[in-house]
């Protein structure tokens, strides 16, 4: 992922070469705009203190070590070819006897992704399920967050605890529990038959429905918490002002509360959507053989087919696919922070 160019506060020296905006000049300025470059230049010129640089260096190094480097490894593997060997892929760089280095980049994996409809379908289905799950989380989570935000202060902390409490149990166990609830002779079917509402068990397990239930259940807190944060910060006098100006409560919700809670809606939706696209555990446990999701495809390529290069290509493509919503999320967050700062002034 490319960090967006940030205008440097430090005065920039003129770019080398012609000062007219050539492609090279643009590129140079763009490179200087990188936060990392800005900081290093700032250190060299004495405009950024060492203490400050150290504070940002720690998370930067963390990301470099545990995200940047592994991603480069995956990227490298995605350009190789599968072989039955240890490791199970061809090296990119080879030294020949006479001091010649060869670099072999194979684009076959990416071609396969583009040509085989399986991958297209998996990507499409992952995004479809993630979208439906996000909308469901929003529809369930918004009233919950609203209720907590409007509850008496003494009730808010216990209610929030109830949202967070499931995290204290293993995620895996909680997903397994849904099997017991949804299976044909499970809790829900037995209850419905016992009540006489149905005669035969409804087949819910191993369908898109069970996957959605699992995802919505698991990711609901990630929707509720940012929504609660925005809703609880909202000034009640705005609703009073709306009522005073002749606006009925229902309309006031639509014209005041909802638009003002959009940062929370977007943050919550991103927190649900992004991890759901790549979700593997839930479709694996609750989904059926025909539940096609990219996380499952990746797992199959990696562990069943032992095709590391294709698995890597799938991973890289997933990441690129998610860059768009992530960058958008980042932008919204930044704008929200900027607006909050302006409001404080």
């Amino acid at each position, binding site marked *: 992922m490319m960090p967006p160019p940030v205008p440097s506060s430090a005065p920039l020296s003129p770019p080398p070469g012609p000062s007219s905006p050539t492609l090279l000049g643009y590129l140079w300025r763009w490179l200087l705009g990188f936060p990392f470059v800005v900081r290093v230049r700032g250190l060299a010129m004495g405009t950024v203190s060492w203490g400050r640089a150290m504070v940002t260096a720690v998370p930067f190094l963390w990301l470099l070590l545990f995200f940047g480097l592994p991603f480069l490894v995956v990227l490298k593997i995605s350009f190789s070819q599968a072989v039955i060997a240890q490791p199970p892929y061809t090296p990119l760089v080879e030294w020949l006897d006479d001091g010649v280095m060869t670099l072999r980049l194979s684009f076959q994996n990416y071609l396969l992704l583009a040509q085989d409809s399986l991958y297209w379908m998996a990507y499409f289905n992952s995004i479809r399920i993630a979208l439906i799950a996000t909308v469901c989380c929003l529809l369930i989570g918004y009233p919950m967050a609203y209720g907590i935000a409007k509850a008496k202060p003494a009730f808010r902390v216990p209610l929030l605890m109830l949202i967070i409490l499931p995290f204290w149990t293993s995620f895996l166990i909680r997903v397994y529990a849904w099997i017991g609830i949804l299976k044909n002779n499970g809790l829900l079917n037995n209850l419905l038959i016992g009540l006489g509402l149905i005669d035969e068990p409804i087949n819910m397990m191993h369908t898109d429905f069970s996957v959605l239930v699992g995802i919505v259940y698991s990711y609901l807190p990630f929707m509720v918490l940012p929504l609660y944060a925005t809703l609880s910060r909202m000034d009640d006098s705005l609703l009073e002002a709306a*009522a005073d100006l002749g606006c009925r409560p229902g309309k006031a919700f639509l014209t005041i509360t909802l638009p003002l809670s959009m940062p929370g809606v977007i943050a919550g939706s991103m927190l649900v959507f992004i991890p759901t696209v790549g979700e593997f555990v839930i479709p694996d446990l609750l989904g059926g053989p025909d539940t096609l999701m990219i996380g499952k495809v990746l797992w199959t390529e990696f562990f069943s087919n032992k095709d590391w290069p294709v698995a890597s290509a799938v991973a890289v493509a997933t990441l690129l696919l998610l860059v768009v919503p992530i960058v958008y999320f980042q932008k919204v967050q930044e704008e929200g922070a900027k607006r909050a700062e302006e409001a404080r002034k």
Partner: protein
Amino acid sequence: MPVAQGARAQQHSLEAWQDPKARPIVSIEGVTKAFGDHYAVDNVSLEVFQGEFFSLLGASGCGKTTLLRMLAGLETPDSGHIYIDGADMTHVPPYRRPVNMMFQSYALFPHMSVEQNIAFGLKQEGASKAQIKERVSEMLRLVRLEPYAKRRPHQLSGGQRQRVALARSLAKHPRLLLLDEPLGALDKKLREHTQFELVNIQEQLGTTFIMVTHDQEEAMTMSTRIAVMDEGRILQIGSPSTIYEYPATRYVADFIGSVNLFDGRVTGGADGQVFVHCDEVGATMAIAHGEPLTAGTPVSVALRPEKMTVTDVKPESDVNVLRGVVSEIAYLGDVSIYYVALPNKTLVHVQLTNLARHTSSPLTWQQEVWLAWEPENGVVLQT
């Protein structure tokens, strides 16, 4: 009733609140509101008339804001009734009242432009686009914010936001405008300027204003009448001058302006005057008072600092004269303030206007002086 009430009544005979035939636009009857076991508003009754600029004045927590919010419909009284324009509004929700409010925090909608904020109330009425546009530009003109129509609230200064809030609350032609500390968030200089601006707008539109404030100067400057509140009750309602010159209680006298209070007992009376003996000071004071009081009644005598004279020569009269020594002098340019210590160490606050230019004050520290006042310049307060 204070003695000069008759004179004032004559002077203001045209004011609506003294016209028995006038019908009040707002009438609050025995309204009580409690939060838990704390009475925020305790059996309050008052009437406000068309075109008035009425202030609810009191320290924080006196119930003035709760009373205002009940007028807006944002709180419901526990008992009592609120009539606006003759209609019982006690349980009518805020969105159906012919009343608008300007909030202390302004409560501007942050996601709407200045224009959209002002248009919000009109849209709820279902006004046509052309009507809304016309009214919004009229309001922008009124508060001189035409160039800022497209801005968002966070792009405005505090004073500009205040004017947007005013324009928004006036846009719907309310019968009654409620203002909750409208100038509270402005700095001192802007506040003084805005006071006059607000009064001008009120006079221009003829809308009835009810304002909540804790600032007595603000209330005095802007209001036609003031209701002084304390602990959920109304202590006195009257014009600024009545409240200042004829405070009804010790609290009112103390809250509005500075005052010297002497506790004593009534010893007798004659010719519309009451004689009060103050043991502490060891003096008997003759104070004008409308009705005779029975001897022995405990009372307080209130004397405003500017209503006394201080001289270094003993006055001829023995009545209403106190001897003391100058303890502190503050020269403020237009006036000088003297703190005179009486023999019992009580400090009396006296204010003299510096009329002549170069008079070095004849009074100096630790000098023996005499304080004197006319019977009409004091007020007897029953405790």
